[in-house]
């Protein structure tokens, strides 16, 4: 268990962060790629598969849950692939990238979100 966890857990977080940051940044009502797995419409309490834009009838869309679900799937795939890699050779890679990649994702997101603050 521990031997797999040493690679699978960091790889999950890395895959999650690496998908989530561009998913948030590049999702729009007319995006060509369906970043969120599903869309939730809180005004009518309905879930729909994929990226769906809101309108006056169905209200505003919420993609956050869908981004999390998509990112979790990507993280899971990364974890499976990582668990097949040799443990010793990749040990240091996981120990450093587990915090470097999320910080890079934070920086990427922050750069995108500066627009909210007029920066």
């Amino acid at each position, binding site marked *: 268990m521990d031997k797999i966890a040493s690679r699978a857990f960091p790889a999950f977080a890395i895959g999650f962060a690496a998908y989530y940051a561009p998913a948030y940044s590049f999702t729009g009502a007319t995006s060509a790629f369906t970043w969120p797995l599903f869309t939730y419409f809180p005004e009518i309490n309905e879930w729909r598969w994929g990226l769906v834009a809101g309108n006056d009838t169905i209200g505003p869309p919420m993609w956050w849950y869908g981004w999390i679900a998509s990112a979790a799937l990507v993280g899971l795939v990364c974890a499976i692939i990582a668990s097949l890699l040799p443990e010793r050779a990749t040990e240091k890679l996981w*120990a450093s990238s587990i915090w470097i990649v*999320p910080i890079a994702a934070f920086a990427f997101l922050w750069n995108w979100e500066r627009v909210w*603050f007029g920066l």
Partner: protein
Amino acid sequence: MPITFLLVLHGIFSVFLLGAVTHQFLSVFWPRKPGQSDFVARARGVNPGGYVQAIIILYVIEFVLGAILYPTYRVLARPPLQDLQLTYVIGLFEVKENFAAIVLAMLPSYWYFWKRYPDYKMTRAALTAILFATVWYDMIAGHLVNNARGLL
């Protein structure tokens, strides 16, 4: 009424989480030295590993409560903020939701490097610092957003 109850619960658990993560952060980055026994030193002089499971459980509870409250924010609070062009308030919330999601995915690794893999001290410290910064930011941002436009 349930939304108010959940929001208060969200606030209460955030205090518990802040306390736990702050104790751990201080004990990692500013440990108590021998002979120090004042109030601040005692706050720093804890066993940081002992907080890991509590932090994970509290973080997950906080995340779930936040996810339940989020639709109410989206329907009731955000439209008036948009109408008033208070985009920085919306931005505070956007940053909060994004950082919270990424840190949620880091929790299994956080547990692993604290509880199962003591060799990487730097990794443990970095994960603790990220968690500390995220939890404090999320609490302050959530508070400011709620002050600007509550969920009632």
